[in-house]
């Protein structure tokens, strides 16, 4: 008795291969469906965020049903299978059973960051990878979770109604390519001081936006100019939180301008 040869990567999940006829049927379905498309969502082990967004996409606000897209409760009715979540060890076989239950031809969509490449769970011990490791995927919809509008767009791409916008890009450094300085006219120590305080008060992300806007608005201002320019900005925004932060930054700037008051 001879054992079958075991491949080197036998432990890596391989997607199901389509036979020729199924592939041909599928290509016509992708190009021109000419009827309603029924969607069944297959949860391969996600956090349920994607499911919530799928159901937001069929609410009256986004109303996917006006394009004939209907979420059905059984894979036997489905034309489109939405694979959400990273493929976990325990949910792999149920997901494959759902795939096998759907009639040919069927469009498979990887939905969400976890479906497209494993997402934040990609290196867990119980995660196989994105859904392309078990089934042949036709469309990838990234997002964590994709918004209802992104979901509609993804369906439209899958059914050949809209063209995809994202293109893969490769950049190779040109000779003499240089990164520009941020606000080169502002002294570095001042920028660092303002940005640090703004980020401390406004949060890391908002703080950067506030400090950039603050320094841009004060560019080239004389001492008497500062107050009216800042009050104009604060009146435009009308946000007490911003007012608090900007007042603190202005005070800091005044302190820093005095001799001996400079912070690193």
């Amino acid at each position, binding site marked *: 008795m001879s054992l079958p040869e075991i491949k080197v990567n036998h432990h890596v999940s391989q997607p199901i291969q389509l036979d020729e006829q199924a592939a041909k049927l599928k290509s016509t379905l992708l190009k021109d469906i000419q009827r309603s498309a029924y969607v069944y969502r297959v949860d391969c082990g996600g956090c349920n965020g994607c499911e919530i967004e799928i159901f937001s996409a069929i609410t009256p606000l986004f109303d996917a049903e006006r394009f004939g897209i209907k979420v059905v409760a059984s894979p036997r009715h489905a034309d489109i299978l939405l694979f959400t979540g990273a493929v976990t060890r325990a949910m792999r076989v149920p997901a494959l059973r759902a795939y096998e239950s759907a009639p040919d031809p069927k469009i498979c969509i990887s939905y969400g960051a976890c479906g497209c490449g494993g997402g934040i769970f990609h290196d867990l011990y119980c995660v196989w990878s994105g859904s392309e490791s078990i089934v042949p995927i036709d469309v990838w919809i990234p997002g964590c979770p994709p918004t209802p509008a992104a979901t509609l767009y993804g369906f439209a791409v899958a059914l050949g109604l809209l063209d*995809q916008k994202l293109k893969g890009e490769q*950049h190779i450094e040109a000779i003499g390519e240089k990164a*520009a300085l941020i606000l080169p006219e502002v002294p570095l120590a001042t920028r660092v001081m303002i940005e640090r305080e703004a980020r401390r008060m406004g949060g890391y992300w908002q703080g950067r936006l506030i400090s950039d806007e603050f320094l841009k608005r004060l560019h080239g201002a004389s001492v008497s100019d500062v107050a009216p320019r800042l009050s104009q900005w604060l009146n435009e925004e009308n946000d007490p939180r911003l007012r608090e932060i900007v007042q603190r930054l202005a005070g800091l700037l005044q302190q820093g301008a005095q001799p001996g008051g400079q912070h690193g």
Partner: protein
Amino acid sequence: MLKLFKTILKTGKATVKYPFKPLEVCPGFRGKPVYDAEQCIACGACTVACPANALTMETNTTTGERVWQIFYGRCIFCARCEEVCPTRAIVLSEEFELAVTRKADLYTTATFALHNCPQCNQPFTTKKALALTLDLLAQSSGDPDTVEALREVYECCPGCRQKYNLSTNGSLRMRQIAVGGKS
């Protein structure tokens, strides 16, 4: 019944016109991270911050290249990369139409040249990161001539600079050059 029709008329249509008309997203919406490769210095701060490992960077010392890559499929749009980027090279946009039919379109890569230390001939950073460091030094000191005079020292790797300082009392010499450059 009439009241119902009145209410319906008053409410109008709630459904958005989205695929036919562009959708307006809320302020602060975090969409596709737009990458400006010219502004990137390949410092790797974003690849460290990225919780999903959508951003990766690989250094190849034999070819002298550093390849930065984003895989949009794995991105969770948390804006941590935007927070930590020191040159504002990656910024989250309002673009949400990311669905693709070819997986290769989900990748964006950028290749950068490594800088070799003139003393030991070993790479220790990228050319762009070094250039930006010198620019920042010139900006903060307000004295580009001194920075230019000390360029040779700055272009060395930290190990070689340390050796140079220990053997030739280099920090004293640096100071001399700095004083000379100012006068």
